């Protein structure tokens, strides 16, 4: 699975996710990537793209959950990502990337590594695999 989340210079958030799914999956199996609110979500607060065990991400409506805890619990972006990865995955293995309308960028995962990269307008840039 691959994904990208962006907030532009006008504070508009967007998210996109694409995948081939599971190796040896049953024909017709749908994972989280095409499900808005599970694998992908964006609103005026943030943009989120998920990857990992689709069935766990769907159960946890993971992408929307990040926006929801920001909206209802008033959490900041990284706190929201950490809360969701810790509390909404029912032992499933997954990771996600997120941006906020304030120009923040965050990542979280509970498995062994995640291929990810991020950058912000003030010059921060990072590409990583491990913790």
């Amino acid at each position, binding site marked *: *699975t691959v*994904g*990208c989340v962006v*907030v*532009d*210079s*006008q504070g*508009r*958030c*967007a*998210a*996109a*996710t*694409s*995948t*081939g*799914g*599971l*190796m*040896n*999956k*049953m*024909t*017709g199996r*749908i994972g989280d*990537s*095409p499900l*808005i609110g599970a*694998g*992908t979500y*964006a609103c005026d607060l*943030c*943009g989120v793209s998920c*990857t*990992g065990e689709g069935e766990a991400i769907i159960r946890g409506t993971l992408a929307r959950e990040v926006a929801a805890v920001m909206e209802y619990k008033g959490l900041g972006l990284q706190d929201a990502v950490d809360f969701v990865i810790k509390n909404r995955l029912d032992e499933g293995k997954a990771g*996600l*990337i997120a941006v906020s*309308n*304030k*120009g*923040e*960028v*965050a*990542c979280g995962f509970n*498995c*062994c*590594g*995640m*291929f*990810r*990269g*991020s*950058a*912000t*307008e*003030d010059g921060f*840039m990072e*590409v*990583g*695999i491990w913790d």
Partner: protein
Amino acid sequence: MGGWAIAVHGGAGVDPNLPLERQEQAKQLLTRCLNLGISALRSDLPAIDVVELVVKELETDPFFNSGRGSALNENGRVEMEASIMDGPKRRCGAVSGLSTVKNPISLARLVMDKSPHSYLAFSGAESFARQQGVELVDNDYFITEENVGMLKLAKEANTILFDYRIPLGMETCAAGVDSPIQMNGLPISVYAPE
């Protein structure tokens, strides 16, 4: 309001023994895609255009599990899925069960912009693709030798492999038995990064 920001991912769950060369390849691809997004943002492209542009680039490179290099289903075919969402007004588009559309994320974008719906799947999505004139290719375009080998291993192990790949050179699942980390009841070494 802060400035612009961007993040990309290529999948979660990485075999700790992933060869350094593969790690480097992954980082170079992620860096290239990040830079593509950064230059689009510096040209004031809207966020929704930037995420489509970057994911399209990731779909075209066979390294990760999307577009070219997608995982294979039980019949050895590629069935892709994608979704896209624009924060203002929460507009969204999604597609599933694609086997001929070169860039699924662009079809998801067209569902959002050019259809009255949010989600089209399988034959409906494929006929919408033809109607919209997006680039169509043969299913073989998406299939790599590496994935054909992985499907064989997955069938031998009688398991469904999550978004991950088995490291090259680890032909037997037993190779990883000494790793303490488990996933889906199998040693992590059975899995490899997307």
